[in-house]
């Protein structure tokens, strides 16, 4: 009836996924399945369907944006393959570039998008430690996104994750079941954020309690 589309703020959601060699096989398949369920789950929520836009950034020996920020109905699942090193620092640079170009900023004449939500999943430590430290520091000080980082499995190093965000989770295994739970929790967090942005601006991000077997890293 009335074109109100221009007043809808988008909620940009970036998934930063570790696709290094250690993720090969069952793990990467579980990640793909997780993305599929995440999209299906979000499409079933009217608020998320209207506001959430999704992008996938992967990192292995390189880092790249597999899928640009896309509305849920048009989102195409990226082809994910696991191999190589863990260029995590590069991935943070790609993330900052993407946020810079894709997220609409508030200007004199235009309303801006919501602050992006970034979910990071890694099972190791960065191969490019110096780049990582610089980029993590930059991300943390610029406060351009709400970042939730999840360390998966025994080899994941949470000290690096703590450099980029206060919100760090740890899951003990990388089983298909745990990964499914992780993505379900991501969907819950997105729905919650798109629903009840009701705390005063600047207050800590409200997230649902993590699934069983996940610990919040203090």
């Amino acid at each position, binding site marked *: *009836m*009335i074109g*109100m589309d221009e*007043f809808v703020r988008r909620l940009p959601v970036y998934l930063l996924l570790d696709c290094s060699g250690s993720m090969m096989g069952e793990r990467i398949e579980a990640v793909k399945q997780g993305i599929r369920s995440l999209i299906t789950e979000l499409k079933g929520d*009217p608020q998320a369907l*209207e506001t959430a836009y999704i992008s996938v950034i992967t990192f292995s020996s390189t880092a790249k944006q597999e899928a640009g920020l896309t509305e849920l109905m048009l989102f195409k699942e990226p082809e994910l393959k696991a191999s190589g090193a863990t260029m995590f620092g590069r991935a943070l640079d790609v993330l900052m570039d993407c946020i810079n170009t894709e997220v609409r900023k508030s200007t004199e004449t235009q309303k*801006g998008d919501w602050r992006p939500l970034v979910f990071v999943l890694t099972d190791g430590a960065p191969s490019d430690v110096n780049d990582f430290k610089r980029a993590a520091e930059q991300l943390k000080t610029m406060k351009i996104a709400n970042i939730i980082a999840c360390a998966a499995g025994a080899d994941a190093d949470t000290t690096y994750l703590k450099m980029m965000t206060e919100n760090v989770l740890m899951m003990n295994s990388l089983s298909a079941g745990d990964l499914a739970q992780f993505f379900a929790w991501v969907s819950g967090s997105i729905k919650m954020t798109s629903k009840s942005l009701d705390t005063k*601006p600047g207050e800590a991000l409200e997230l649902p309690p993590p699934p069983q077997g996940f610990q919040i890293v203090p």
Partner: protein
Amino acid sequence: MSKIAEAILMDGSKLPYVITDNPPRGGMKYTYFAPDKSYVIQFFNDPEIGMIPEIQDRISAIIGKYNPTLSEENGGARGNSQTLADYFSQRYCWPVAMVKYPEFGIVCPAYPSNYFFDSNSSIVEGLDLSGKDKKSNWFTSRNRKYLNKSELGNFMMMLKLSICLARAIRRMHSAGLAHSDLSNNNVLIDPKSGSCVVIDIDSLVVPGLYPPEVAGTRGYIAPEVLETMEYPRSDPRRCLPCIETDLHSMAVLIYEYLLLRHPLNGPKHIPNITPEEEDFLLMGPKAVFIEDPNDQSNRPQNLNITVHDLGPHLEQLFMQAFVDGLHSPKRRPQAMDWERGLIKTWDMLYPCENPNCREKWFVLHDIEHPVCPFCGKRVNSEIVKIKFKKELRGKSGQWMPSGELIAYNNYPLFSWHIYSNVFADEKADRDLCAYVVKHQGNWLLVNQKIKGMRSPSGNLVPPGQAVLLKNGTVFRLSDESNGQLAEIQIKG
């Protein structure tokens, strides 16, 4: 993977439920279903909250002495009859019991199946909605375009479910209860049948008991609640959810149902702050109604259909809610005012003559310019208006206007049209009293069961007989006490 578990209720009885991996989760609670889906069991995200005695006391009061879905006989609200309990059971998903094991929880009935989508509800590939709740904003946002037309109902159905909502909230408020989180998520609507159900009843504000934790949902929180969030809960300046804040949330929902847009979401923009801060200001201290006649700063350019097109009753109520009362909670219309205004507007509904009109019905509030605002079609048929008058108390023979309706062929009249002391609420008798019909070119009002209907010349018109309606005809609908006078206007 799912498995069956058993909950033990406070009275010791046991109820099975299905534990699923990723249960639906709200801000406060998560939900498991019964094996046959006839009820749900909800636990708190934070189990500690469920352990607070004050919270258990509140929920116990909600389930018992404040429960309008149980008759007084069965432990429900005082004065509640079984008929009323049955009516309100359809309006709310009211908690029925408390769980003590494995932890504190609540049992609620499942909502009826018409509040779930089915596999035909979505018309786009890749969007399977079967089994999803019909949250309001599926219908009032751009998501409409994904839905099968048969799900969307029409303007009449949206008005009908708005009446249902106003009535449900009026019933709560009249008992002193406030819902505290009315929103697109907590009112499920079925535009197909024109009905709604209010859910998430356990966070009600109950007089004298510990208040709930929630502030509300974005877009529905009253401006004063946002504005005073910086103060501690005990600070007298802090505005917490209450009946007055419900009245804001409900007005937002009704506006969305009838006009398919949010009343505060316009082009107004405050640069140089974050979107989060901006949104806080635009929904809180700096909120402006998009149709505010005195402040155009938030008015969209292409506002083709406005509250004026909803007729005088709703126009006045929306102005009161979003202009006078937006930042002055005490000036907001009560739920009872909404219920009355919506019902008066219902009596002005007219079927659009354009067979392709999206909304099928509109409010014919100006018979000099009878045009459907949704499609622009002008009415060609004769329009019959009945103006009601009621006798001033203690002043026999003195009459004052008490309402009007726009009739069309086979238009039904009910007891609240005939008698000035009957209100069309859940208690009113819904038997047909009379109807307007066009017969061989003449408009007739046929008496179905009214005692004491009088023709314009004063003769008794018994059931089965009719009064001929002409422009200017005046007659008594009933000469019994509180019987109204009808004055006919025919245009066209």
